[in-house]
């Protein structure tokens, strides 16, 4: 009788434990992250203009590229502009005028760890003839295929400069892998989050 009781309790306990075991992944959105980094000591006070291309550039390992959806490019660019305008910045044509901040938008076509190469070449020819360099910030993450990347290059003072600094980077990890795995609302939600967690961009507080 007592043995049966103990056995019954053990079974009930084991079943209860399995039933209560937490689900680590509840939806695909659980994989989404928005990461921002900024160059130390750089103030955004005084920034008034920006330039931005009207496309999302692909970059990554040329020998191992995945297919990336561009179904939401226009919506993404429009949303980025909306966030930049909300900072009080004004968009200008970077081909004819020099903006304070040049905004680059790209998507990864392969999985990378650490900083991503490949942007440099494109932007070097696209605008200005300068190289650029990343801020010296430790970023302990890997970018999955389909990660949306937004970078701000500080072009306020380019006198005698050969490499212009990247002063802000935002990464939405893996959100653009396929057009069916996500939607514009999710992507732009992460873009909005990236700006929301960077309150120093409007120049009112120090980074």
């Amino acid at each position: 009788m007592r043995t049966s009781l103990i056995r019954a309790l053990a079974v009930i306990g084991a079943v209860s434990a399995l039933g209560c075991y937490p689900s680590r992944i509840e939806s695909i959105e659980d994989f989404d992250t928005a990461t921002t980094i900024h160059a130390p000591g750089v103030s955004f006070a005084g920034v008034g203009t920006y330039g931005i291309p009207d496309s999302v550039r692909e970059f990554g390992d040329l020998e191992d590229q995945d297919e990336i959806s561009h179904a939401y490019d226009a919506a993404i660019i429009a949303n980025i502009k909306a966030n930049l305008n909300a900072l009080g910045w004004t968009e200008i044509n970077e081909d004819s005028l020099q903006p304070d901040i040049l905004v680059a938008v790209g998507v990864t076509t392969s999985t990378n760890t650490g900083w991503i190469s490949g942007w440099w070449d494109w932007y070097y020819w696209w605008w200005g003839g300068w190289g650029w360099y990343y801020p010296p910030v430790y970023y302990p993450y890997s970018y999955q295929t389909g990660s949306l990347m937004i970078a701000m290059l500080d072009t306020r003072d380019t006198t005698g400069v050969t490499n212009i600094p990247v002063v802000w980077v935002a990464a939405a990890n893996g959100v653009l892998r396929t057009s069916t795995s996500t939607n514009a609302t999710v992507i732009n939600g992460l873009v909005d989050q990236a700006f929301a967690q960077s309150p120093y961009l409007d120049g009112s507080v120090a980074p």
Partner: protein
Amino acid sequence: MNARRLALAAALVAGLPTLAAAQGGHPLVGMTYSWSLPMGDTKAFTDNDSWIGFAFESKWYASDNAAWGIYLGWNEFYHRTEETIDFKGGTIFGTQYRDYNVFPMLLTGTLYTGELDAPKRLYFSLGAGAYYTHQTFDLGLSTVSENVWQFGVSPEIGLQMNTFRGSTVQLSARYHYTTESDAYLQKDPQSQQYLSVGLGFFSKVF
């Protein structure tokens, strides 16, 4: 998977006293289910009460009012949050899943009030021994984990209700406290601290 294997191993080890029963005395062997409230550093990482708590326990009576025993437990604490994480030079936002699986392995000493066959007996117990903790942290597609061993103590107060032929029901409150360790993912010294309220069923082994 490690957690379940350890729980199985704990159950097997806690059952060993039944083999020793023939050597004298009649040990109480049983299982306790517990609800736990994290405190201190445990609460800072997993700010959720836990409904996942089990312990296998054996007690040998040294006298009518004293016993010593073995306590092998498992408590899991987890917490999902979308708090942002600030680091030097940046911020990360995403769904975080934080998890502690804590396995106390204690030697216990227990003092009882009243007669051995009294219907109800209050008792106070103190346990000491090793705590093994498996820590997990998920953020986006990344998962990191750590395994930590610590020394800890665990006082307990409870009410033992004798039912029939040596079987008992125990209602108890147990506090767990470990020494600090900097082996956790936080890299700052961390101590496991939590309060468990348990309901246990024990049977005398003849």
